[in-house]
């Protein structure tokens, strides 16, 4: 069971790495130029606009719900339930 979960994780990690490696070798040009990114650079678009608040939100959900992972925090335990 443990091997199954980790095999899956490593497969995804490899796939993403390979996609990144091969993506750079493709002749596709980046289609959004640096000077076209003023909207994306606007502070209101930042998902981590309030990092200290995001850490608390993740902590509350992790203590009250079973799901964990991909919440933007590094993890680490506590006896919080």
């Amino acid at each position, binding site marked *: 069971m443990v091997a199954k*979960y980790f095999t899956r994780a490593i497969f995804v990690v490899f796939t993403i790495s390979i996609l990144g490696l091969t993506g*750079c070798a493709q002749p596709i*040009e980046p289609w959004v130029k640096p000077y076209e990114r003023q909207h994306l650079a*606007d502070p209101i678009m930042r998902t981590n606009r309030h990092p*200290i608040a995001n850490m*608390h939100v993740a902590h509350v959900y992790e203590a009250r719900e*079973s*799901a964990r992972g991909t919440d933007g925090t590094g993890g*680490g*335990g506590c006896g919080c339930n």
Partner: protein
Amino acid sequence: MEQAEVVVAVINSTMSILVLFIWFLFSISTYAAVLEKDRADVLYHSYDGGGMKIDGPAILLRKKASESVALSAYYYVDTISSASVDVMSTASPYSEERIEGQLGIEYLHDKTMMAMSVRQSDEDDYLAKSVNFNISQDTFGDLTNLSLGIAFSDNKIRRNGDDLFAEESQQYRIRAGISQILTKDLIIALNVESVADEGYLNNPYRTVRYIDTSVPAGVGYQSEVYPNTRNSFSTKLSASYYLPYRAALFLQYRYFSDSWQIDANDIELSYRHPFGKTVELELKVRYYQQSQASFYSDLFPYQDAQNFLARDKELSDFDDITLGVGVTYLIPKQFSISDWHSEASIQWDYITFNYNNFKDPTAEAAVGEEPLYGFSTHVIRAFFSVYF
């Protein structure tokens, strides 16, 4: 295969991937990224609901030591006063304090960001120490960001009032992500994370209940028994969209499954809208749903009914809905200290939990005939941020 061997194999594989990744990243850089601004945040948080009141302060500091190195420190306190439904059915209300600290370092080389942090969370009966490593890289004309990370946590568990009780557990995490700019207004991201726990995973105080016809109350209690391992996999898809009138829309969906047969889904939509140059409003709605663990039961038919026993409501079948609102005030420069940009924010979340197979044992009813449990909670964060 033994779990220890699997873990060693995983760490070896991960290190090999990281070495390959780092070598590749350093070989393709064309121009550099920059570290984020220095900032300090001071926060007061409060959670009030379901018989629990938790509040306290938190501080986050982040400072560049050079153009390529940034240091961070985080300090967080939970002051807990609990009379939750678990506590009221078999024990007495209690209060305790949890202190968490984190130190981090980030190193930027061209477009490669490496971050490492150490963390400690300390309570009377639980000490967790962890280390976390992440690496990320901008690539493809900076339209794509790739990230990888690993973490390890070592936990020591004690039981108040029982000096002989000493257990431990370990947690291993591995994660990867890709973030892609799709248009000049849209970014999407895919993140995955696998978490493996081994050791003592119970709550040392919690009991399960079973039908016991030999006592007048008709119900008996015994300690929970959990498996010694838990492995989970989580996938999150998220999107950030810039609306034409300067506002932002965020959508995220996460799917989670684990070896205890818990499947969970959550979806969150949030919206950020500025008013003039000084106010930002944030609205959020989130729905979460999970199935119960294979060894969970609200009421077991008899004592030692199965090898593993749980009656933790967080392992039961339930859903919750969050409604949130937040306001940030961008303090005008003439009121700022040393021309530092500063902001004051307050966020309020209202969360409603509905349990589908966890009955309220404090209700006046026959055993097993109690109404289903549910509660609502108010979560407040008030914080002040300074960029210097």
